[in-house]
């Protein structure tokens, strides 16, 4: 087993041992999205109009909830030193950590979103599109959030700082993610929005592991 696969497997096993961490994230997503129909009222047109934005925002906040522990736990128990000392690129280790985060948050959020979308009166095709955009967009959230988590490692109030750093960087993903769903619902160009969303994910994939590794090395000093 390669070091990359071993690290992903280890983090997944840790989540399996403490499922409450993921359950809290998903519960937040459910509660946050269901509050909107309750607060705004049963006007179907209004709910359908705001659905994509609400679900994407809630997914973004839910993903951020779990990110402050992404590297902090390794930092606190000393396993970050073992990652820094692994005889393979730290950039790959950073990518493995973000990959594991995406598997346990991004994928469940994408799976859960269409179910919650029913409460907003979305058509089945739009529900499917919502799930696809989250599947394509949430890797960017994990990567950018991972960078913010690495940069705030060891800082006081790191959770708030992480959100302040990550949220502005996630705005393009939020715009094109929600925009893609909106485009499909209103007859716009869904494919173009999705392509931009995928491009943002690729840019994050190509850049953030190096930045995360640099931040982790700095934290390890």
């Amino acid at each position: 087993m390669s070091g990359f696969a071993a690290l992903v497997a280890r983090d997944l096993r840790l989540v399996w041992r403490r499922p409450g961490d993921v359950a809290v994230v998903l519960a937040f997503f459910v509660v946050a999205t269901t509050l909107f129909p309750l607060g705004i009222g049963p006007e179907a047109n209004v709910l359908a109009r705001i659905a994509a934005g609400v679900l994407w925002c809630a997914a973004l906040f839910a993903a951020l909830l779990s990110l402050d522990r992404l590297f902090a736990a390794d930092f606190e128990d000393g396993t970050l030193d073992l990652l820094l000392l692994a005889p393979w690129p730290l950039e790959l280790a950073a990518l493995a950590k973000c990959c594991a985060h995406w598997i346990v948050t991004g994928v469940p959020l994408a799976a859960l979103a269409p179910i919650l979308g029913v409460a907003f009166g979305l058509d089945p095709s739009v529900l499917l599109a919502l799930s696809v955009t989250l599947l394509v967009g949430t890797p960017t959230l994990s990567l950018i959030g991972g960078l913010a988590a690495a940069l705030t490692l060891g800082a006081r109030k790191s959770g708030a700082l992480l959100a302040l750093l990550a949220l502005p960087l996630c705005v393009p993903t939020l715009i094109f993610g929600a925009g893609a769903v909106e485009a499909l619902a209103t007859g716009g160009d869904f494919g173009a929005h999705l392509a931009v969303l995928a491009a943002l994910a690729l840019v994050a994939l190509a850049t953030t592991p190096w930045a995360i590794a640099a931040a982790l090395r700095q934290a390890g000093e």
Partner: protein
Amino acid sequence: MATPLLEVADLACRRGGRRVFERLSFALGRGELLALVGRNGSGKTTLLRALALLVHPEAGTISWQGVDVRAEPDAWRGRLAWLGHLEGLKADLTVAENLLAAERLRGAPQAEDRLDSALVAFDLSSLAARAVRTLSAGQRRRTALARVVLAQAPLWLLDEPLNALDAPAQAAFRRALATHLAAGGLAIAATHADLGLAGGRTLELGIPT
């Protein structure tokens, strides 16, 4: 002295704006142990972290078989077994899972074959399936030491290896260290306690004024 494998020349480190040590030089050959001693804040841990490339030295070189280790950092890290102040264990994994995960992160295949002997060396066989969060401080330290043994790395870097260990565990550590040295391994240990091995060298670090 044996032909040096590890050579440190004119090493200097600065931490938090303060020079921790400077012009530090030593060499270590096969089967040699170097105990780092000195008061709190004298730079023992910093030296270990600098040797592991976790801290960037301000000046000086670290060479392995005559080659600067910074030229091939991944190869250098592959030669190290590390025990820090913190055990580097995941509380929610079992003892065995922690050891195997650490070996897999090192890219080492077939760690399962060697696991039993590492567990036996530190009397951990009966604890192998226990979650680390349920262990005492001494048992966690023994687990971390078993990880060092399991790594089969030529150079051990140990920060206070005897911390929290009772007398039988200390004896087990000394046996493991003696076996490692007898097999031609090297070890550098920061310690406030006597490592209890004859023939080891000592490097005393002072607090710079």
